[in-house]
């Protein structure tokens, strides 16, 4: 539906986007995720029409959008601070795109009323935006952007101004809303948790490039690079060299630790002698006081260096023999949990053969 073809953008000597290619399907909830300065907002502004690519093309249903000014593109944007018109009532705000499109007065009234009901604020029409809470403003901005049924909705970090509780609630609402209206959402955020929770697919961006495009669970489970592994969730990154490759698994010599076996994905480009990083999620990293032979593929001795009690889980930071700190997550609900570890305890860090994911450098 939306195709981004070889799009580049330079600001003086700074390359904001470097030959970006993306295809976004109709009805998709697609997220551009990356640290600030990665080019995600530039890309969004280009889709909206506020910026022009130096090279490349942006196509909607096969037709180029480049020559179309923002006001004529069949898409709307939710801005970071909502950008509600302060001199207009909520109803006038929502009516704005309809008025610009030249709808009849009676039709506008009906559609505004319906839009207000859709965002469950039916009695706020006469209020001014100033009188609304952050979450309400957010909903009005969404109502305003959806009232004349755009093909695409662009959302530029729309939840960043809300507090954590409200943000979670709005995330759920966005998911429901997107499902209901069936409009393609392109969502920009630097918050990986938000991206994982909301999206059908995520494009992870860094330094003007797209690093990986995938579904949230695949992105989390099978990052294609150290960057993605580190950026999405927490991750232990253990550097090493591949020493042997077998069918389905490989042997890796981890720097200063020793050899481990690990499962490899087909087509991961694993080859003997290459430098690699074993990415290991803290929840798949086990710690215990005693050696538990059996399923675990790797065991290393360490000392509890730090711990963070988070209520549902406790994060242990364990210092290994090579001085590296490894995070391990222990659910506090685990049945038969013998005891908490304390800082300074000697522990055993272990993980299963299929716990790690190998990325090449």
């Amino acid at each position, binding site marked *: 539906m939306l195709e981004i073809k070889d799009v580049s953008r330079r600001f003086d000597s700074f390359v904001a986007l470097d030959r970006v290619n993306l295809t976004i399907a109709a009805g998709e909830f697609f997220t551009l995720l990356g640290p600030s300065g990665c080019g995600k907002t530039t890309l969004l502004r280009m889709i*909206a029409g*506020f910026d022009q690519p130096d090279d490349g093309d942006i196509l909607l249903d096969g037709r180029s959008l480049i020559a179309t*000014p*923002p*006001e*004529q593109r069949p898409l*709307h*944007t939710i*801005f*970071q*601070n909502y*950008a*509600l*018109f*302060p*001199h207009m009532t909520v109803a006038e705000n929502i009516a*704005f*795109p309809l008025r*610009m*499109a030249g709808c009849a007065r009676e039709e506008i009234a009906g559609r505004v009323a319906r839009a207000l009901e859709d965002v469950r604020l039916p009695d706020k029409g006469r209020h*001014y935006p*100033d009188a609304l809470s952050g979450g309400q403003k957010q909903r009005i901005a969404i109502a*305003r*952007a959806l009232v*004349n049924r755009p093909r695409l909705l662009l959302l530029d970090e729309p939840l960043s101004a809300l507090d954590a509780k409200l943000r979670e609630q709005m995330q759920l609402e966005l998911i429901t809303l997107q499902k209901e209206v069936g409009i393609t959402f392109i969502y920009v955020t630097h918050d990986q948790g938000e991206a994982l929770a909301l999206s059908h697919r995520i494009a992870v961006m860094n330094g003007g490039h797209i690093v990986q495009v995938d579904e949230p669970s695949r992105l989390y489970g099978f990052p294609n690079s150290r960057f993605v592994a580190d950026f999405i969730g927490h991750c232990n990154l253990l550097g090493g060299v591949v020493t042997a490759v077998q069918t389905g698994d490989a042997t890796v010599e981890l720097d200063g630790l020793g050899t481990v076996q690990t499962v490899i994905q087909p087509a991961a480009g694993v080859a003997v002698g290459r430098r690699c990083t074993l990415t290991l999620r803290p929840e798949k990293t086990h710690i215990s006081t005693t050696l538990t032979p059996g399923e675990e593929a790797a065991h290393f001795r360490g000392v509890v260096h730090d711990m963070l009690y988070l209520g549902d889980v406790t994060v242990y930071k364990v210092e290994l023999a090579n001085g590296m700190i490894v995070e391990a997550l222990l659910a506090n609900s685990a049945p038969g949990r013998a005891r908490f570890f304390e800082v300074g305890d000697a522990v055993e860090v272990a993980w299963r053969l299929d716990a790690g994911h190998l990325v090449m450098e």
Partner: protein
Amino acid sequence: MRRKTWRRQLLTLPPTGYLLLFFAVPSIIMLFASFRYAGEYGGLAPWYYYEAGEFSLDLTLENWQRLFESEIYLLLFLKSIGYALLTSLLCILLGYPLALMIARRPKRQRDLLLLLVILPFWSNFLVRIYAWMIIFSPAGALTQMVNGLLGLFGLGPVTLMYSTTAVIVTLVYVHLPFMVLPLYANLEKQSPALLDAAQDLGANSWRRFWHVTWPLSLPGIYAGSILVFIPVLGMFAIPDLLGGTDSIMIANVIKQQFVESRDWPFGSVLSMVMTVAAVLVVLLGARLARQGVARG
């Protein structure tokens, strides 16, 4: 809570004192003077007599009656208000594009352009008026140019000096910065995101201006209009120096009462009327501006 109000009162003390001392007290003196008799050689006659142990007030309503005896004063008031309105309007027409242009420039250019707007304030007011006298003089460049243009259409030469046109042009020139500065302050702080949003929602550049920039700038327009309207209402130097006999304003008459006619009480009557008119305009403007601010 109590401490806070106490502090707030302390903070408002200097402006309150200033207003009392320089506005309320003089106004009361003027109001009082408007009920007194003129002194024989100017000034004011005593307001009471104390003769043979008897105390008598010597106040009168004559001065106020005189205001209504002839319609000339009412007409002059209306004309002055007309001049002030016209000047404000012309200042909006000229100042709005200027303020908007400056506000949309990069930050560094803005400061320079603003400096240029207020640069005339660095020279003396009268010097600037005399400069206009040169420009308007029959041999002046402007007059020559206008008459040259008129000549092309076979129209007779005109004199610009000592005319209402000269008065209005100079009033606008002198007061334009008072319109530009508050307008600029308003336009500069308008969020560009609102224009992006308007464009995103389908508004072309004209509609973005008309539906977003303009309504949000109304408080700036009210503020600027007050700042232009009030000094123009009290202006006498410009009509004196550049105006003809038909372009005198009410302030000229007030000045005449105090200086030439030496009729302070009647001058006070006219001053009071003008003060009340000015206060009403300020109240109206402040009310409109506050409504705008409450939403903006």
